[in-house]
C-alpha cells in the first residue's frame, strides 16, 4: 500500500507537526520505504492470536490515594518557556 501526500499532511496535522511541501515529500518517501518493510507482517496469519499488551504478567498493585505535595510551584513554573511567576502562558484562545 502506498501512502500519498494527502495522507502525510493529514497525519502530520494529527501529530501537531507543521510540514511544508518539501518536508511532506521527504516523509512520503521515507514512510513508504519503512512501510514496505513493515508489510512483511502480513505473511503471518494471526486470527487466533491474543495480542500482547504487556510483558509484565502481573496485576497492577493498588495504593492508597494520598496527596504528596512538595510545594514545587515556583520550581515548576521556572521551566515554563513564557515568563510569568504565577501561570503558564499560552497564545490567546478566547476572543
Amino acid at each position, binding site marked *: 500500500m502506498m*501512502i500519498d501526500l494527502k*495522507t*502525510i499532511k493529514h*497525519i*502530520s496535522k*494529527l*501529530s*501537531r*507537526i*507543521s*510540514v511544508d511541501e518539501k518536508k511532506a515529500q521527504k*516523509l512520503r518517501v*521515507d*514512510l513508504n*520505504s*519503512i512501510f514496505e*518493510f*513493515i*508489510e*512483511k*507482517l*502480513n505473511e*503471518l496469519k*494471526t486470527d487466533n*492470536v*491474543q*495480542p*500482547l*499488551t*504487556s*510483558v*509484565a504478567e*502481573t496485576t*497492577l*498493585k493498588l*495504593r492508597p490515594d494520598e496527596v504528596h505535595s*512538595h510545594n*514545587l510551584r515556583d*520550581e*515548576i513554573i*521556572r*521551566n*515554563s*518557556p*513564557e515568563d510569568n511567576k504565577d501561570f*503558564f502562558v*499560552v*497564545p*490567546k*484562545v478566547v476572543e
Partner: protein
Amino acid sequence: MNSITSQSLTTLVKNIKNKKLSSQEVTKAFIERSEKSKDLNAYITEDYANALSKAKKFDQNPNFDLKIPGIPIAVKDLFCTYNVKTTAGSKILSNFVPTYESTVTQNIWNEGGILLGKLNCDEFAMGSSNETSFFGNVKNPIDKDLVPGGSSGGSAAAISGHLTPITIGTDTGGSIRQPASFTGTVGLKPTYGSCSRYGIVAFASSLDQAGPMAQSVEDCALLQEIISTYDPKDSTSIDFKRNSLSKELTREIKGKKIGIPKEYRVDGMPVEIEKLWQKGIEYAKDCGAEIIDISLPHTKYALPTYYIVAPAEASSNLARYDGVKYGFRSKGENLIDMYEKTRSDGFGEEVQRRIIIGTYVLSSGYYDAYYLKAQKVRKLIKNDFDHAYKKVDAIITPSTPSSAFKIGEKTNDPVSMYLNDIFTVPVNLAGLPAISIPAGHDTKGYPLGLQIIGKAFQEQELLNIAYALEEKINFKNKVNDWWIK
C-alpha cells in the same frame, strides 16, 4: 592513561575502602580525563564543580559501608536529575531542569555515587548511531571516523574512553547492547520491570529499560544490584526476589544448557561475525555448558513489529511536548499554530518521522491492520522464547550484524539504520534480560560483541554465563586515546 582512570569500578571501590585512594583523587582523575575528551562529544552537561564538592564532603565524613563509596559517575542524559539540566538529546528539552530525581539515579547516589555529568544520546533515545542528538554526534574512542552506536552512544564512548568508571544507559530496542558492542564494552539490558522507569524520559514504555554499562561483567553486576529495586512510583516495576548479583557471581556454569537459534544466521552476515559466534559456542562448551540447537521461528518479524509498537508508544509519550509547561517554544499565530511550530522546530527529523509513523498506525482505519497486528506478532515472538526456555537456560547470538560503521554512512536510509537492531529487538519485545560482552575484533580491528539472552528475572544466571565466557575470551580493547592531543 592515568593509573586511576584505568582501574575497574570494583578495584576503585576496593582502593577507596582501603583508603589507598580518596574520593577526591578519583573524582579529579576522571574530571581531568573528561575535560580532555571534547573531541568525543560524549558529554551534554558537565557537573564537575559539584562533583568535586561532593567528593570533598564524602572524604570529610566517609561511609565505607556503601557499595560505591565516593565513586564519580556520568549518566545518560535521559535520566532526570534534580536541579541538573536533562535534555534527552533534544532541542525541545534543551533548557529543562527537573524538579525530581529518577529512581535509578537516586539508587546510585544512595550507595555513594557522585554525579559527574550527563552523557550524550540519540534524541529521545531514537537512533542507533548517536547521530540524531541535537548536541551533535558522539565519536567512537576506537576510531574517530566511527559512530559509537546508539542510542546510549555517549555512555558507551565514556566507558570505552575511561571518562567514567561505570555508567547507565537505557535500552528500548538495543540501545545499551549495540553501543556496548561497537565500543568493546559490556552492557546489560535487564528484565522488563527490574529497574524503575520513574524519571526516565519516556520513549516506548512497554519496551524501555535502564541498565548498566561497564568495562567488565563484574562491574556490571555490582551496578545492576544497585539500580534494580521495586518502585511503587512505576506501575510496571515488578516485586521479585533480587539477588546480591555481585556477591553471588560465579564462573561455575557446568551443565547449563545454552541454545543457538538458527534464525540468527541472517543473509549477508559477515563471515567474521559467524566465526565470532562459533568461538563463543566453543568457549561455552569449554566451560562445561551443553549446546542445544533451537528455533525462534518469528525472529524475522521482530523488527517490523518493533517499528510499529515503538513509534506508536512514542507518538503518545511525546504528545506532552507542546511548548506550554516546559522546554522550547516557537512563536505561533494561535495556540494550534504554536503547538505545530514548536514540535516542528523542537524535534529532529528522526523523532518527527517516528511520531508520524506512530500516529499513522494508531489512526482510525489503520489501528487493526498495524498496531493490533503487531501486538499479536509480539505475542508469537514471546511464545518462541517461552518455548525455547523449556529446553535451555540461556541463548547465545551475535550482538549486532556488523561492527561499528562510519559516521554519516547510514543517515540517509532509515531502514538500513533500523537493521542494526535485528538481533537486539526481539529481546525487548519479549521483556527478557540480555547482555552484550566484547568477544573479538574484525579484520579492521573494530570490536565485536556476543549477546547472551537469559530467562526473565534470571539476571544472576545470565551474568554468571557472561562472567565465565569473559574469562575465556580475555578481550583487550584497542583504545589509543586518539582524541587527546
